[in-house]
């Protein structure tokens, strides 16, 4: 029961990443693509936590923390580049 529900939620998360990929490809300006990148990374953070449960190893969550921190830094540095504050 639990594993079936988690299977379905993993598929829905992958579909969410695919939808934001559409915005990444189409997006008229570069900030649009940056928003799509942000949503993609946050969705794959939830996906990493799910993978950690499926493999039943707590140590994978360390990777998730690093992932969240570094993707945040990437979005901030590109924004500061846009507004000439770097």
């Amino acid at each position, binding site marked *: 029961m639990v594993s079936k529900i988690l299977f379905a939620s993993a598929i829905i998360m992958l579909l969410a990443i695919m939808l934001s990929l559409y915005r990444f490809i189409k997006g008229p300006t570069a900030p649009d693509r940056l928003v799509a990148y942000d949503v993609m990374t946050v969705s794959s953070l939830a996906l990493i936590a799910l993978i950690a449960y499926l*493999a*039943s*190893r*707590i*140590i*994978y969550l360390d990777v998730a923390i690093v992932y969240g921190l570094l993707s945040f830094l990437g979005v901030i540095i590109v924004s500061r580049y846009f507004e000439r504050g770097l």
Partner: protein
Amino acid sequence: MEKFNLENISLVIGILVILIGLWGLLTQKNLIKIIIGFALFDTGIHIVMVSIGYIKNGTAPILDNAVDINNAANAVVDPVPQALVLTAIVIGLGITALMLTYVLKMYQKRKSLEINNYNDLKW
């Protein structure tokens, strides 16, 4: 159909990323685009190496409560390619920083990022 498993899928992905990186390295005219192609080439090689070290249904080579220590040799994946890739990623960052600094100095000299303007050694 027996080829359809995790290590083969990631091996194909790695090979295709290598080819895409090589294609960018050879066809692009912008210096920064060439460096991006080089970084993709690097990533592809890392994916290929990690997927060659994968053992079927293996778990991470870190022995904590989830892995039986006495039976570790039958449960974990190969640690040696992972150690090699770990070294390679760090060296890749050093090389990328070095190439970007060279591009910066070249731009200060010629005010151009096009590779066709740097034809000093062309005959």
